[in-house]
């Protein structure tokens, strides 16, 4: 199976061939590197930009105004904080200009912790991004979702930010990308650039097929009836793992909702699950003060206060200035497996 980052690369190739992508660009995005995470290796429209995140977003907007379909990369979301007002402008162009101009840009950027990235390679961005009206924000946790959401991001005529969980970029999916070869090694030989000199290398792309995942549709990663867990990104597979263990250990079963879209989020799926279980835990790794998960908690309380059996809760990253390099820091800054499992057990077993 393809890794998440291979899925992104194949989606971008599909976008170039079938969806009108004109430019894939950013710092180190073009040859020879093809992206620090390899997401853009071998793509025919990929090019290297100056080291200027504001210029990257602005140029993408310009390309889009003039009829292009750009996919711009911010190398790490941690480098994107200086773009925040241009992101805001991108989100308001259609509204501010009375519908005169659409803004069909895709910005992709790795987000979250889990790569021992220290202070400036471990940030999460979804809570910041959720405060950018006019944008759509997605965050796939599997390779197939990354493929399908990237295709949708490309064809959506609005600005779409694709947050890629740093920790999951090398994780293989459990489902095939439509058209990918059976053998992982064959795929690697086809589309991964060789280490070292790659000046004469060209990719051999598989015959990929369309697979669109609608923006705003969650994925039910596990189905259950005891409690609801809402998550996305790096903590999502940990929630799934914990759900599987707790089923064995306690007989408790969980709806584990992979939100996939931060905005618009799939309120119908969340609401239906909370109505069913009366117990809800929201897990993400962004810092906990004015965290996007708190908004979901507000919606849950507004709509389901009298449906809840126990207090709803969140498990979030600590409100600290950064994530320290020593793993003692990281392990105690953002949700890890043990803490997630403990929180899920607590929400499932608290007496109603």
């Amino acid at each position, binding site marked *: 199976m393809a890794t998440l980052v291979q899925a992104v690369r194949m989606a971008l190739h599909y976008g170039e061939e079938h969806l009108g992508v*004109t*430019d894939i660009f950013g710092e180190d995005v073009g040859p020879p590197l093809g992206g620090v995470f390899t997401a853009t290796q071998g793509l025919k429209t990929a090019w290297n*930009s*100056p080291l*200027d995140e*504001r*210029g990257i*977003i*602005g*140029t*993408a*907007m*310009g*390309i*889009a*105004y*003039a*009829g*292009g379909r*750009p996919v711009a990369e911010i190398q790490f979301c941690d480098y994107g904080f200086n773009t925040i*007002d*241009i992101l805001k*402008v991108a989100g308001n*162009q*259609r*509204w*501010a*200009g*009375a*519908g*005169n*101009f*659409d803004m*069909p840009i895709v910005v992709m950027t790795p987000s979250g912790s889990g790569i021992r990235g220290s202070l400036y390679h471990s940030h999460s961005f979804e809570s910041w991004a959720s405060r950018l*009206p*006019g944008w*759509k924000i997605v965050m796939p946790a599997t390779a197939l979702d990354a493929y399908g959401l990237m*295709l*949708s991001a490309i*064809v*959506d*005529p*609005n600005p779409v930010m694709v947050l890629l969980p740093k920790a999951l970029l090398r994780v293989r999916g459990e489902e095939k990308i439509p058209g990918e070869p059976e053998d992982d090694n064959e795929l690697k030989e086809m589309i991964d650039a060789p280490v070292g000199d790659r000046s004469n290398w060209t990719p051999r792309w598989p015959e990929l097929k369309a697979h*669109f995942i*609608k*923006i*705003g*549709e969650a994925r039910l990663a596990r189905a259950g009836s005891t409690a609801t867990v809402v998550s996305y990104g790096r903590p999502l597979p940990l929630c799934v793992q914990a759900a599987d263990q707790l089923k064995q250990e306690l007989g408790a079963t969980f709806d584990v909702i992979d939100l996939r*879209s931060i*905005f*618009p*989020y*799939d*309120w*119908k799926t969340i609401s239906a699950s909370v109505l069913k279980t009366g117990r809800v835990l929201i897990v993400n790794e962004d810092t906990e003060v004015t965290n996007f998960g708190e908004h979901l908690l507000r*919606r849950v309380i507004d709509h389901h206060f009298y449906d809840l059996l126990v207090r709803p809760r969140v498990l979030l990253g600590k409100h600290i200035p950064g994530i320290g390099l020593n793993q003692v820091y990281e392990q105690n800054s953002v949700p890890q497996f043990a803490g997630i499992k403990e929180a899920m057990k607590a929400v499932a077993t608290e007496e109603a």
Partner: protein
Amino acid sequence: MSSKTIVPASLAANGAAGVVLPQVGSGDEYLSAERCVELHRLMVRARVMEERTIKMSKSGEGYFWIGGPGEEAFNACLGLQVHKGQGPAFDYLNLHYRNSATLLALGMPMLDGIRQMAMRATDPHSRGRNFPGHYAKREWNVLPVSSVIEVRHTMAPGTALMQKRLGGDGVTVVTGGDAGTAEGDFASCLIWSTIPGREVPVLIVVANNCWGISTAACNVHSEKRIIDRGRAHGIPGEVVDGNDPVASWYAIERALTWCRTERKPYMLEAKVSRLYGHSSSSGALRVKGEVDCIEQFEKKLLALGILEPPQVAKVHEAAELEAEAALEQALTEPQPSPEDVEMFTYADSAVDAVYPGDYTGLPG
């Protein structure tokens, strides 16, 4: 004042027959009398519209005012010379909020500027959402004006890239003030428009009025000429008297010709006035001691016999009547409704499960 010469076309045509051509300054550039009359009328209309919107800001018919009195000469010349149209075959305009003369020169009715000031639902540029002078018009490639200064300098190389790819001679114009050049986005524009082998046709206009709100440029900037910043990137440029429509006309013509033919950037630093201060926040009172491009131009036109005093008066009267009629019309038009608040947030999308159409409030 200008070093240029204004020669009425009729006189120029007869010059060889022995008519003494009226000379102003020492330059060798000429504009036809017809063009000068056209520019004068546009400048006056822009001024009158701005002054009307200033009054609206004080009478309660509008709120905040910001605009371009003092930039009419340069901006009218710009509007008459860009290639107007939709898409990359035509010029893109990333304007600042002092470009109303450019819009009038492109053909905007005064009514549309007044509609924006009056915050009407009929305001075609922002549906009553944005400050005056914040234009947006797809059919003319006028990209939405941003209150945040200089951000549009990051976007200009993008449209210009598409124009260069297309072929043809489309140019992207980006206009900012002198104070805004302190933003990193100005440097971004210089760098991105001169990527080796990927140079793009951006005309970078710096409307230099020597002010950033209340701060004089000389107190916070050491550079003598802003265009010199372009030299490090190989960007040619010139400083022009933006209060002189003839000098401005030809400087813009040279700049656009360079961009259209070389497909590379060019920088124009236009020395302009700021005749009503920064905005209504600073009172929007007429300042003294700065050149008024209209008064100056009228003196020339009168001295050369291109216009007579009654004709000048008639131009002003016509503009005043147009503004009055525009205001009267705008005030009869509907306000935005509460239902309009979310309108135009999203374009229709076939891949959005929640908002296949426009935004409709929180996901339900």
